């Protein structure tokens, strides 16, 4: 397995509270991504990063922000959690210039009550 660690793996939080999910990689991959997975929707891209301090929005970015201060860490923050953000969140990484696949972390199950 690619060295991708997500933390926490499970979290229950209350509506309106900020939440930060962490993705840590040991592969030195350039690209990092945050997806959410919901029944019937497959995986949808929230934000991505193409280098340290270089990030951009994906298709479902409202209510989320990200930061990447080091190559190995990509943080996803829910600024004020809502019930619609209850989901499973996956981090993924991809090496620069490689004709290979993206590698996924184990996922974080987030429940907003």
């Amino acid at each position, binding site marked *: 397995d690619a060295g991708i660690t997500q933390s926490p793996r499970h979290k229950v939080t209350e509506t309106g509270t900020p939440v930060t999910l962490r993705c840590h990689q040991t592969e030195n991959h350039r690209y990092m991504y945050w997806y959410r997975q919901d029944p019937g929707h497959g995986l949808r891209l929230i934000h991505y990063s193409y280098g340290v301090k270089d990030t951009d929005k994906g298709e479902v970015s409202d209510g989320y922000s990200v930061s990447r201060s080091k190559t190995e860490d990509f943080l996803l923050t829910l600024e004020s959690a809502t019930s619609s953000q209850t989901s499973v969140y*996956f981090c993924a990484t991809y090496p620069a210039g490689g*004709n290979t696949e993206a590698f*996924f972390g184990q996922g974080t199950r987030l429940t907003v009550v």
Partner: protein
Amino acid sequence: ELKVEQNPLFLSMQEGKNYTIYCNYSTTSDRLYWYRQDPGKSLESLFVLLSNGAVKQEGRLMASLDTKARLSTLHITAAVHDLSATYFCAVDRSAGNMLTFGGGTRLMVKP
């Protein structure tokens, strides 16, 4: 906007039978990926298809890509119970290596 559609969304089949999962996408791309996901688990890469006409096989699974038709297929030969999982195709929509996923095909193989 790139759209990726898989069908069927759910597939129940008997062991020993053959079947094909289809993945259609809406805009030009020459990179397509197939992943497998077991319940409660992460995504496991199955195939990376990087050019028109690419065909890859691993065990009872074979994937192909037709970029002109914007279609990929995942063919299952002589299904076994261990293949029960959800299968996703994903298309790389830009040089930024951003994947757009299909909705997934949940496969159940019955003894």
